[in-house]
């Protein structure tokens, strides 16, 4: 048994952490929030130069040809650093969709541009409040590849050049299509996001030209979300670790009643509970990483488990870090709310906890 990342992977992680500590302090996220920017272009181009976007993309498409495990450790560091960039939209979702269900022409067209960080992509699935990833879209695609409909909560939708859009095929099945957004009939409107550093858009599609992923099946979206759930879980765990560290460091310095706040049992036990939640999420994320890297049949269960634990752990860690800061935690100036907002965002955009819990049930009770 070797249930750990390799030395090489750990090295990639520590280099990433060092880079992001220097290049992506919380002020980066704050700038995007306060300037209503789409993302941090400067950080994005630096990360492109490091080759992270093509880490898991085969060399033939311009990537580094490494695997999912390398992506997992990078994700953890991006989450820790609250990086305000469309990495997940491009790499976990758009890129993965092509890997899973694109044909050679589609891959050749798009993967090199993802690997080179030359485009921003988005994924558009939800249409109404309450839609789950498995809800059948109202958005239709006609036989000749024209899309009609509206998509909401599209992360990075205001800046994206291309979108992965779920639609109802003429057979009444879900299909994923590639849609170039710079065409007539395609309107975008910004909607405020809980995580102001990760803006959302509403896309209105009126008879626009799209191209289905060539090998898309009814299972493709589920498979795609499994992969993304594991990677999101690593981002979330990275966030948990940052929030926990922030809370401990603040309460060790801050005094009340003549002693450091961190010496009070109520505060210590709060941190112990946060740590337990984080460790459980981390262990489940590891298991998801193993399942992803080894294409194990357990992936579906492992991904849902990792996601539910990570959703809960990051909410708890970001919420109680804020609480441990006392009144100052409630100010705009302190960074506590950055994690709290990011925790909301990450736990919602791939579908909320109830959806993923139901996925766990489906897997656990399958075959019975």
């Amino acid at each position: 048994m070797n249930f750990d990342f390799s030395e090489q992977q750990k090295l990639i992680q520590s280099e990433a952490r060092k880079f992001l500590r220097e290049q992506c302090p919380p002020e980066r996220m704050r700038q995007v929030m306060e300037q209503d920017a789409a993302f941090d272009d400067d950080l994005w181009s630096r990360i492109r130069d490091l080759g992270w976007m093509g880490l898991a993309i085969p060399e033939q498409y311009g990537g580094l040809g490494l695997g999912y495990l390398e992506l997992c450790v990078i994700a953890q560091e991006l989450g820790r650093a609250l990086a305000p960039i469309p990495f997940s939209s491009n790499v976990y979702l758009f890129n993965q969709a092509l890997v899973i269900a694109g044909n050679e022409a589609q891959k050749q067209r798009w993967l090199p541009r993802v690997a080179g960080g030359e485009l921003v992509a988005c994924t558009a699935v939800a249409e109404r409040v309450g839609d789950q990833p498995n809800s059948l879209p109202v958005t239709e695609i006609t036989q000749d590849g024209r899309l009609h409909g509206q998509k909401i909560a599209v992360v990075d939708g205001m800046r994206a050049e291309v979108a992965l859009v779920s639609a109802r095929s003429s057979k009444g099945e879900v299909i994923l299509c590639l849609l170039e957004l710079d065409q007539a009939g395609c309107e975008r409107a910004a909607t405020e996001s809980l995580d102001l550093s990760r803006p959302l858009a509403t896309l209105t599609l009126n008879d626009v030209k799209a191209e289905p992923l060539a090998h898309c099946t009814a299972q493709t979206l589920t498979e795609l979300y499994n992969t993304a759930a594991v990677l999101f879980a690593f981002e979330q765990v990275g966030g948990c670790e940052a929030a926990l560290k922030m809370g401990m460091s603040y309460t060790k310095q801050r005094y009340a009643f003549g002693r450091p706040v961190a010496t009070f049992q109520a505060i210590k036990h709060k941190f112990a509970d946060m740590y337990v939640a984080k460790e459980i999420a981390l262990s489940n994320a590891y298991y998801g990483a193993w399942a992803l890297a080894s294409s194990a049949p357990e992936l579906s269960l492992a991904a849902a488990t990792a996601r539910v634990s990570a959703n809960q752990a990051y909410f708890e860690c970001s919420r109680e870090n804020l609480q441990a800061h006392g009144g100052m935690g409630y100010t705009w100036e302190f960074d506590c709310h950055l994690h709290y907002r990011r925790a909301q965002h990450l736990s919602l955009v791939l579908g909320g906890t109830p959806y993923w819990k139901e996925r766990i049930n489906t897997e656990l009770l399958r075959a019975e």
Partner: protein
Amino acid sequence: MDFKDTPEQAQFREQIRAWLKENAQPKTETETVRELSARYQQARAWYKKKAAAGYACLEWPKKYGGAGLTPIHKLIWSQEVAHYDEPDDYFVIGLGNCGPAIMHFTEEPLRSKLLQRMAANEDVWCQLFSEPGAGSDVAGLKTSAKQADNGEWRINGQKIWTSGAAHCDYGVVLCRSDTTVSKYKGLTMFIIDMRQPGVEVRPIKQMDRGQHFNEVFFNDAVVSDQYRLGAVGGGWEAALLVLMNERMAITAAVPNGFAEFFEFVRSAELDGKPIRNHPLVRDRLAEWHCMDAGVRAGFYRMFTAVAQGGMPGAEGAIGKLVAGKMNQDIAQFTLQLMGAAGAIHDPKIAHENAYFQDAILYTPGIRLAGGTDEIMRNIIAEQVLGLPQEPRADKGIAFEDIPSN
């Protein structure tokens, strides 16, 4: 056991019902939670209106501009006014906290002058206790007051979390007048003119982007000894009187989110299905109903105790402790049900005018303001249940020797 008014109470209730119907603004369906600071002008107009009709400061003596009635009348008023969209509690800190301190600690003619102006809403008051380094541990505050040979005091330091300070004319400020004695003994309380030189108010931007609270900086602000409230070194006792009045100020319960959640369950559809039929939602509805109902029934018990001449108990602390976490849990649960679209913070798209998105961002504040959850549990444990204090690291030594940051 009944919910009936006495004949006198019933008559008073009828009278104010009739008056409110004529004068107060009804609630509307589309109402959104407005920032407190945005309601200042409305609050002031409403106050003047009710004062003119004789309904301000119901339980204050008439000589100070009150109506000379009892806490019960105030409670009846609170119940009735709650049906309208008026910011009736807006000036509660001045009236409920500062007022009684002025009544208790000042002499005539200053007393009547200050109270009458406060009762008439000519002066608005704030309370200046918390500091950046003294939140949960208020008595650890450092803002200094030094007396000059002419008897005047000079105040230096910084206060924080002062509600509505930008609109205030006067404040009650707690200062450290002696650092060489123990923590609770070296405090002195003063009235301060918020418009005078050396007092600077700066708004605090909250994480939900509201700006109701302020920082207040004192830079050699001079206060005459006549404005001292209580003895030199008697500030803590004076502060306890103010805080007890805070507890006495029987205001509406802290918002716990139940009404909004109930409305959501009644009306919302998710993924094309009414969520009222979802067993998990029903489980939560029942759970939160029990807490909401229990807190409400607790207030009825308190109301009865006060009507019988007793003092309010721990009901306020329980209500606040329950409300903060519950409201946050409700917001989280509801957003998760909404799926990806839960991340959209837009009243045109999200249910209940984005109440739950607003709430996820403001509920952390409920769990902190007026005492954190942890401090509430300390209060319940020590003051209600009588459990012993922890060993104190700040006991029996001079304030200046207490470890601090």
